């Protein structure tokens, strides 16, 4: 890379968040839809757990799912091809999916359920839920890109930004 081109690259790269949005909208056109984007119409959310169906008792679910109590319904099916067990859950009372801004605020019950499914899968497969924070880091200098990434990271363990 020549130095002049490199300088242009450095400036342009600061607009990185735009790239992510562009990439996502091109790869997944549903991402541009205002409501229901990334959510199945049925409301069922699913993870595949690498365990036999007999190892997963729908009446004695891991804590993250058990905490939902009667607010969710759960189904358990064998996954084809020896891939384990499909563990699905959906909210009995499902709010309409809000705009991206509300999802980014972390107040999306669907996202909470997705997070619970993921944590339940980890508890069954590994025995613990992996955590990353607090991770060592240096000074967090404020920047627009940093704010966006921080918001994204906050919801990423839940349901991404879908």
């Amino acid at each position, binding site marked *: *890379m020549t130095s002049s*081109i*490199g300088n242009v*690259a*450095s400036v*342009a*790269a*600061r*607009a*990185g*968040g*735009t*790239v*992510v949005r*562009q*990439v*996502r909208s*091109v*790869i*997944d056109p549903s*991402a541009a839809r205002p409501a229901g984007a990334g959510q199945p119409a049925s409301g069922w959310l699913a*993870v*595949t757990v*690498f365990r036999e169906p007999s190892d997963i008792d729908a009446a004695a679910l891991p804590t993250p799912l058990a905490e939902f109590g009667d607010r969710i319904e759960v189904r358990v099916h064998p996954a084809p091809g020896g*891939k*384990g067990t499909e563990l699905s859950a959906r909210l009995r009372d499902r709010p309409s999916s809000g705009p991206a801004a509300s999802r980014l605020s972390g107040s999306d019950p669907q996202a909470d359920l997705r997070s619970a499914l*993921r944590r339940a*899968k*980890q508890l069954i*497969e*590994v*025995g*613990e839920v*992996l*955590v*990353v*924070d*607090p*991770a*060592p*880091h*240096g*000074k*967090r*200098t404020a*920047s627009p*890109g*940093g704010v966006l*990434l*921080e918001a*994204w*990271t906050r*919801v*990423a*363990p*839940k*349901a*991404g*930004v*879908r």
Partner: protein
Amino acid sequence: MKAVTWRGVDEIGVEDVSEPTILNDHDIILEVGLTATCGSDLHLMGGYIPAMRAGDVLGHEFMGTVAEVGRGVAKHQVGDRVVVVSFTSCGQCWYCKQELYSLCDNGNPNPGITEALWGQAIGGCYGYSHALGGWAGSHAPYIRVPYADQGAFAIPDGVSDVRALFASDAAPTGWTGAHQAGVQAGDVVAVWGAGGVGQMAARAAMLMGAERVVVIDRYDNRLEQVRTHVGAETLDYEEVDVPAELREMTGGRGPDVCIEAVGMEAHSPGPQYLYDQVKQQMRLQTDRPTAVREAIYACRKGGTVFTLGVFAGLVDKFPLGAVMNKALTLRGAQQHGHRYIPEILDRMSRDEVRTEHLATHVMSLDDGPKGYRMFKDKEDGCVRAVFRPGA
């Protein structure tokens, strides 16, 4: 403690950060002995993977000594000398059980980012942005290693720290490319890129029985390393027409396997490079696929092209017609190192894999910014800048 951090685009810092602690039962805390820069770090440094926050600790290729173990760790004890694979993988999910460790369902605590980008999340990687988990990197005196029974490997006596260091990422990434591309005895294999990963992909292909292995680059010192330390042939793409040379070397067929070990910031002579630069800077493509295009063009009919260099998003002018009409197999992967590291360490102990030459510049953490500058600009023949936190 002191750490080398990403401060912004093309800005590397050295600053004080807190020491890591055990957060999960399967963690260890590692006292870092050596930690290397990697070509893929340059994509972070340049802002091409826009998921870094100021203050993030860099580094994903490292070895060291176990300083503390979580209560769920069975394989390691304090004082063990280990090398750690750069990907965080649980070892228990379906993907890990298929030995596709970089695709681990559980190793990335921030799955939503890559899920949104790519449809599904892959595993995590140390020091490689919040898209791959937000894990603190290894350019520090200490690092937390989750899933340590899966990701940390005891280094055999007689294998030096510097040699073992590259069993963390460069060598297993090369092994992933050669093995997943299906290199077989008698194959002719071409590898684009003579950096650490390209060199190790070439070495892996040779050890897997390839009849002839050719590495392509433009830096004389790297090509010399390939000839001297890897034992493969070389082509300088600024001196020759690479596809023409490869055709001549293969009786007109083209290589059976083409491994691209360059990634999203590929360089090439001619107008194609300028075109890709302009498209990338205008955000009309995120990655420059120059070497991938050439690999597809050069590959023999029915052959395999493997993208081992890091790509993040979209590319332009992708020769899908050649892929389809030549019946190519196109594959790619991050490294499934857990699968290959035991074999690599064994081969290192028998001198079949030598990597010391990659560490052209060893320095202290205080020299982090200098090391990255030298590595990026290839100053003084820098192939890899390596940091020794204890120095």
